[in-house]
């Protein structure tokens, strides 16, 4: 009986196996290539979709730790990459730092050389570089004596620009007296100095005056004007004495109290360090016919420089200058009056 059952089971299995093998061969023979549009192809795609859907949750269970380990591995790789990148960036930063220092040095050198040799704000304005040979700074006057005079074309009211490596170029003052080979410059901090200026950012016009102090004072700026600490103050060109756009200083403090009336009380830090300046650039006037036509056309607002005074003036002695400064009858006082008149106009 048992043998019969075993035989039946074996024959059943043999039949099943034969059927399975035949079915497999049939499928192999008829099965199309993947993606082909036929009945078996569509059936295969459907079966594949069902298999993936069915096996998905089971696989996800096993894939989670594998994915987590992959994530950890990738994170460790990321750290290594970041470390390498950090090292690379540090090297790059070191290189850029050295380049920055070089660039700064070159910039300063270029600035100094341009100022000394080649810088010409306007084609129509010639300039003379002079060395300061005397400094008459006292409680009542701040003036420099330079080694360039009438022989070099320097005339009264010529604009003097200071040259320092630290601050570059900026307005130093103006020539008030000349001799054959020397000229006297009234500097900005001098009590008699008045310069028409404007604030570069807001274009508010004003007058910068000296107080015999390191800081300058800005006058005639109405309360409510658009001014800020740090604004650059440049010459306005009004009056024709100073060319437009020369840096004068930066606003350091602004006060508006009842005592100041309708105006602000503004302190300006000069661009030029008057204690360290050694050379000056003197802007000389040029005859109109000396200016080439094409250059004259290119100039939008050429600075109007007054005609040179040909009268030979001797350099005043210290006693004369002190007398003149205190009396206010001659020289600087006269220029100050002219500036104020122009400004008011």
């Amino acid at each position, binding site marked *: 009986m048992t043998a019969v059952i075993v035989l039946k089971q074996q024959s059943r*299995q043999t039949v099943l*196996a034969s059927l399975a093998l035949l079915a497999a061969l049939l499928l*192999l023979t008829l099965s199309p290539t993947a993606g082909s549009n036929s009945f078996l192809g569509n059936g295969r795609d459907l079966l594949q979709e069902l298999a993936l859907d069915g096996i998905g949750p*089971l696989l996800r269970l096993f894939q989670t730790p594998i994915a987590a380990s992959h994530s950890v591995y990738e994170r460790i790789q990321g750290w290594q990459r970041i470390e390498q990148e950090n090292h690379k960036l540090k090297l790059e930063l070191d290189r850029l730092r050295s380049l920055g220092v070089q660039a700064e040095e070159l910039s300063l050198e270029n600035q100094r050389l341009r100022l000394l040799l080649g810088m010409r704000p306007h084609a129509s304005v010639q300039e003379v570089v002079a060395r300061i040979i005397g400094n008459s700074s006292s409680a009542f006057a701040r003036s420099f004596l330079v080694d360039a005079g009438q022989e070099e074309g320097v005339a009264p009211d010529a604009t003097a620009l200071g040259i320092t490596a630290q601050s570059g170029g900026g307005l130093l003052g103006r020539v008030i007296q000349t001799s054959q080979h020397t000229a006297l410059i009234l500097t900005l901090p001098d009590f008699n100095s008045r310069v028409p200026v404007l604030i570069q950012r807001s274009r508010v016009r004003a007058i910068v005056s000296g107080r015999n102090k390191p800081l300058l004072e800005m006058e005639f700026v109405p309360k409510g004007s658009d001014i800020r600490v740090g604004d650059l103050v440049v010459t306005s060109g009004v009056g024709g004495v100073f060319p437009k756009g020369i840096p004068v200083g930066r606003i350091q403090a602004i006060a508006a109290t009842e005592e100041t009336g309708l105006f602000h009380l503004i302190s300006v830090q000069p661009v030029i360090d008057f204690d360290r300046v050694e050379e000056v650039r003197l802007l000389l006037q040029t005859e109109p016919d000396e200016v080439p036509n094409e250059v004259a056309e290119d100039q939008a607002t050429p600075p109007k420089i007054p005609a040179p005074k040909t009268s030979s003036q001797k350099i005043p002695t210290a006693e004369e200058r002190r007398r003149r400064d205190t009396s206010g009858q001659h020289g600087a006082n006269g220029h100050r009056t002219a500036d104020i008149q122009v400004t008011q106009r």
Partner: protein
Amino acid sequence: MTTLGEYTVIASLIIAWIPALTLILAVGIQELVIPLEAWSVFRPDLVLIGLFYWRLYRPDRCTIPLVFAIGLLVDTLSGTALGLNAFSKTFLLLLISRFGRRLRVMEFVYLLPLILAAALLDATLQMVLMSLLKGVYGRWPLLLGRPVATLLIAPLWFSLLIYIHHWWLEKV
């Protein structure tokens, strides 16, 4: 008590499908989990190891229709010609069934060469079928990679199946 009885029924129903589940798991791992960028010729045939084990020790749970279906699943997921693995795995199942009684008494170590032989036979069958029916010819050196990988992974997979067999299928 009733609750425990319900749990027992449910557990016995699930446990009956454990061999099938391990085979499905083997298909999933060998066809989907192992990265595609891995050298495909060294991808082990975990299904072959599984059906070898279950057909030897629990033939009642590793039937011909199940192996045929698993073979079709492999074909479907791997993208090979439909019926290729179904045929080769069913054929191997017949061979294992034929010599199963003798093999069951052997030590596991002695079964390893037989697993290698089964894997080689599987590869040969597939190559012959593909060349005869589809005109696709394989290269022997490449066909040898999979049996070798199967042989190397067999102890680990066998151990896992033994653990599942004893602790889940028999004791629960």
